[in-house]
């Protein structure tokens, strides 16, 4: 039910700073130094958060000269989408059974 990929996503985004950085990146690509300025966190800390997000497959990076730019990797969210899809189907099927059960119950 729970894959290692999902574990990494949930753990990466459970941290408030990492979540803030990820949300910030959803507005567009940014260099490490931009993020450092934006969040008032030290550059090593920002890099560490970005590393965790990248390990979770949530962001990707490219190097340009001395700068590394990070952007959101949309496919990284697929395990989350899959999880929601799984439970949506589960509950729809179960509530269908509930409806049939209610039909057969006395008031």
């Amino acid at each position, binding site marked *: *039910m*729970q894959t290692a990929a*999902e*574990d990494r996503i*949930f*753990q990466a*985004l*459970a941290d408030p700073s990492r*979540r803030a950085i990820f*949300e910030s990146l*959803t507005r567009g690509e940014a260099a490490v130094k931009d993020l450092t300025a934006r969040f008032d966190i030290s550059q090593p800390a920002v890099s560490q958060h970005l590393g965790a997000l990248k390990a979770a497959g949530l962001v990707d990076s490219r190097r340009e000269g001395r700068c590394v730019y990070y952007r*959101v990797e*949309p496919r990284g*969210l697929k395990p*989350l*989408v899959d*999880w*929601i899809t799984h*439970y*949506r189907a589960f*509950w*729809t099927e*179960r*509530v269908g*059974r*509930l*409806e*049939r*059960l*209610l039909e057969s*119950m006395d*008031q």
Partner: protein
Amino acid sequence: MTVSDSLSMDFDLPHPPEKVWRALTDPVLLAEWLLPVFGLELRAGASFRFQTRAFPGWDGTVSCRFVEIEPGRKLSYTWTVPGMDTVVTFTLTPTDAGTRLSLVQAGFQPPHKREFGGARAGWKMMGEKLATLLGRLS
């Protein structure tokens, strides 16, 4: 496609809330439509478990604990499977035709942050931003 941190569904049922409530809280009835349930005691803070088919890496146990019980109106419990805590909330609203049953499953977070009462924190904040994210990026 929409993405969200929580799953939310509504069902209109042509039955009175009292009857729906019984189906949500009686272990015999729960086993008929949801899953076999063990140790269920209708008390806030009480733990119980649902049991489904086991498969490799998971024994099929869903560990639960009541968060909120408002008889006939609202039932909320944690829904924990390996690697993830969520909270499932059923809300019953009387309608002319019977009952509107609202189901929300929310509060995803990794197990090391597990903490009773705080289960809805964390992922909730992602909400709407995640909901529009894929659309904006594709």
